[in-house]
Each structure stands twice: as structure tokens, then as C-alpha cells.
């Protein structure tokens, strides 16, 4: 592997931290409150349906339970979605996709672990290829236990989440930015040192003032080391050719 460094631009951390409640203006507070309310009333769900639990979703969405009543709609791409719904077990391969999808979603974003598999591996606990705890890799707001949970449980989970969003308590997504190094460490442990996504979480944390003490660390340093391979943006062509040759 090549040893060249492509540093990720990070602004000084102080200016990247979220301002405390006392620093926000009155208008800001009002707008944030309105925003929170709207966020809780309008939730676009991205279903990550790899497991068997997906079968319980159609009844929740259609005429029997009609989740549109509470402003929920299914959405197609991570860019548009607010909730990432993980239905069932995750293999090591699919977890990579889940992490990419999660990172491509726009904050505030919420993850729902659906079924026992996302909590402790469930019936796949003995499998070498499945992930035991989703929460190690991405921050999860709500787990819905059961194998598999009924639509009523799903509904309850959503309502619970709505309540917490409205109250400003569903902030697990901030944890991902603040303690990115820890999540990345788990990911690297599973996928290897050269694990990379095309997204730029550290940059986002800096840009949106979401950084914390745990944003940078030994694991993000590894990112710098391997960034150039995937992100040829800004890489001089001859260097890129070298990289191509070396890979």
C-alpha cells in the first residue's frame, strides 16, 4: 500500500464545536423550535430491508395502520430520508452499505434498529458473518425488539421517536460526529485499516460545527493515509497513475 499522505482539511476545532444554548439568539431558538416540530411531524423513512422483518412494513404503511397519518412517508434515496430503518440482521458486507447510506443521509437523521438481530445478532448470534451490535458502528436512536416485531410495535417505536424528536432528545446523530473516531475504530476493526467511504464526515463535522473531542483520533489519522486512493479529486494525474499502478 502506498504511504502518501493526503490530509483532510480540518478547521481549528474550537470553531467547529456546536454553540451552547446560551450563545444562540432568540430568533435562532424560535426557528430551531419550529424546525424541531416540523422534523417530528414529517419523517421520511428509508427502509434498509435486508432481513425478514421487512414483511411487517407494508401493513404499517398501508390502509390498516397508515403511517402517513403522522407524516411518515417512504423515501428512496438516503439524501431524502430522515430515518434509516434497519430491518433485521446485517452481514459484514451489508454493514458497509449501511454505513455509507447512513453517512449520505442529511442530519438530523435517525436510525431504528428493527428486530433482535440489530440488538445482539438474534438467531444469527453464532454466525461468523453477521454483525452483533449495530450500535457499535452507527448511532442508533431506537431499537424495536422482537423476532419479529408486530406492526403495532413498529408504530409504537415511531411514535416514541417522534416524541423524542419533538423534545429535542433524539440526538444520536450528533454522537456520530462528536465521537466519529470511536465509530470509525469499530468499523476499521471489522473492515480493515484501509476502510474508507467516499463521504467526508470529519469535514462535515467541521463545516456544520458538530465536532467534539472524539471527532479526530488515531483512526481518523488512518483515513488520511488511505484517502488518496479513492478520492482522486485534486490528485495530480501522474500521482494518480502511480496510485493506480501500486494498487
Amino acid at each position, binding site marked *: 500500500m502506498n504511504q502518501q499522505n493526503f490530509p483532510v482539511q480540518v478547521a481549528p476545532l474550537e470553531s467547529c464545536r456546536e454553540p451552547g444554548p446560551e450563545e444562540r439568539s432568540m430568533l435562532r431558538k424560535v426557528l430551531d423550535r*419550529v424546525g424541531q416540530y416540523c422534523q417530528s411531524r414529517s419523517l421520511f423513512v428509508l427502509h434498509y430491508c435486508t432481513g425478514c422483518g421487512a414483511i411487517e412494513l407494508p401493513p404499517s404503511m398501508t390502509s390498516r395502520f397508515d403511517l402517513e397519518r403522522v407524516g411518515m412517508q417512504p423515501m428512496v434515496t438516503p439524501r431524502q430520508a430522515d430515518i434509516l430503518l434497519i430491518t433485521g440482521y446485517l452481514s459484514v458486507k451489508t454493514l458497509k452499505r449501511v454505513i455509507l447510506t447512513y453517512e449520505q443521509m442529511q442530519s438530523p437523521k435517525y436510525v431504528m434498529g428493527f428486530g433482535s438481530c440489530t440488538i445482539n445478532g438474534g438467531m444469527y448470534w453464532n454466525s461468523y458473518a453477521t454483525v452483533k451490535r449495530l450500535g457499535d458502528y452507527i448511532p442508533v436512536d431506537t431499537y424495536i425488539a422482537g423476532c419479529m416485531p408486530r406492526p403495532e410495535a413498529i408504530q409504537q417505536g415511531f411514535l416514541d421517536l417522534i416524541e423524542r424528536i419533538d423534545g429535542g432528545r433524539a440526538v444520536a446523530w450528533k454522537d456520530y460526529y462528536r465521537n466519529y473516531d470511536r465509530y470509525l475504530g469499530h468499523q476499521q476493526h471489522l473492515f480493515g485499516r484501509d476502510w474508507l467511504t467516499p463521504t467526508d464526515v470529519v469535514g462535515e463535522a467541521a463545516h456544520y460545527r458538530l465536532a467534539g473531542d472524539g471527532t479526530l483520533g488515531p483512526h481518523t489519522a488512518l483515513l488520511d493515509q488511505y484517502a488518496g486512493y479513492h478520492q482522486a479529486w485534486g490528485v495530480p494525474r501522474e500521482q494518480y497513475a502511480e496510485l493506480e499502478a501500486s494498487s
Partner: protein
Amino acid sequence: MDFDWQHMLIELLVMPTLAFVVGLVMVLMARRLRARIERRVGPPFWQPLWDILKLYSKRTQVSHGHMHEISIIVLLGGMIAMEVFLPVPGFDTFAHHGDALTLIYLMMVPTLGMALGVSACANPNGSIGIARALTAMLAYDVPFIITVAGAAMLYGTTSLPEIIAIQQQQGLEGWGAVQMPLLALAALISMQAMLGKEPFEIYVAPAEIATGPMTEMSGKFLGSMFIMQCFQLYTVSVLYTTLFLGGGENWATFLIKIFVVVAIPMTLTNIFPRYKTEAVVAWLWKWPTAIALVGLFVVMMR
């Protein structure tokens, strides 16, 4: 032509706002209609507004470059300009500065803006969506243009306020829908396609190309496209009402007319699956075009 600046400024601000509000209600109506047909309850009253506000209040906003952002501005600007040039009861100063042809071409500006922005996102799903949207435009504009030509022939003018005045002078008999029913029918079908509703819904196609143009749209970008949807419903219905239903005598009848006009495609859309792209083009170039041509000849014979 003397410019009444004060009045114009009011129009410039009030008309888009009105259009947005009416459009929001139209979106709500569409969603409720869908829910009713599917035996659901449907969203609450404020849902369309909440959606847009939520999207605007997103903490992170992904941009794919300046063109991505400029295109949204062009999209909103084109839509606002379009609303201003529509003749609605009490506000038609600007409608005198353009005509039906101007309006039809102005309607393409937001589409072009959206197309450029989507392409700037560098996502092939979006590009495919735009390619399909433009293909659909090529398909539905042929019958639509024939109906516009027929209307221009019938009324002898392309000025929208004039067209309204001519229809209102003659009462219900003077309505375009009565005078040229075939053209009105063809226009109704093209309107269905213009709004991108089933069976002509080819460019959003969530299951196929991941919502096409909206694939990479997030946050306020997506919110702006939701706003565009409100404007679009409003514009198309007002245009149809102006050409075929005598325009608005006053706001009460006007609102009834435009909501009825929107309700038709919104109902139909829920009972159809989607066509393939080439099938959309073939169908639109066959049936509505034939109807419109017959209608045009009928108009020209008179």
C-alpha cells in the same frame, strides 16, 4: 405602455404567495385523494407545509457545486415569473406583457433549471430522469401545442386576458371546453402528462431510477422541488382554466375551477400503473394528438 410600479410590485409579491398557498392545498388534496382511494386516512392538513419546512430546517445540506445551487434559484425564479404572468382575477398587469406562447416557454425555464441542477449532481439516475422528463415533454407538448394553436385560432388572439374576456362575454357557451370539446379533452390528457402523473409518470419512477431528478436532492434542495410541485399544479390548472373554462370571474369560482381541474388527473393517477418511456411517447403522439388534430380542423372549419 405606462408602468404602475406600485401595482406591479404588489403583483410580483402577492401572486407567487397566493400560488404557493393554493398549491400547498392542492398537494394536500392530491395526497388526501390518494389516501381515500387507498382507504387510508391520509396526512394532516399542514403536512405539505411541514414537509417543506422540515427540509429547509435540515442541519446538513449537500451541495454538488455552484450550478446545483444556482439551478434551484433559476427553478424558483422561473416559477415565480410564471405565476406573475398568469392572469388571475384582479391581477393581470403582467399578463398583458406576454401571451400564451410566452407563458408556455416560460414554463420550460424552471424545467431547464432543474435539469441543469440535477445534472450537476453527477448522478446517472438523475440524468436518466431528466432525459425521461424531456422525452415526456416532447411527447405531451405535441398535443398541447395543437390545442394552443386551436385556441389561438378560435379566439383570434394569444393574449391570455383577452381570451378570458372573450369567454366571459359569452357566458358558459363561450367557454373553450364547450366551443372546442375535443381540444379540451386532448389538453386534459396532456395535462396529466405535464404533471407527470400515472400512466405517464416515467421520470420519477422510484422503484426504477430512485426518483430520478430528486435522487441527489436533499434538505432545502428537495424542499425547493416540493415548492416547485405546488407552483406546477397551480400553473397548469390556471392555464387550463384560462384556455378552456373561461378563466376566473372572481376568486371563488376561480378556485373551484382550478381545484376541479387538478382533481381529475390526481384521481386518475391512482388507478393506473406506469407506461414505459417509449409507450408514453407513442400513446401521446397517437391518441391525444389525433383528437387534438381533429379538434383543430373542426375549429378551422368554422
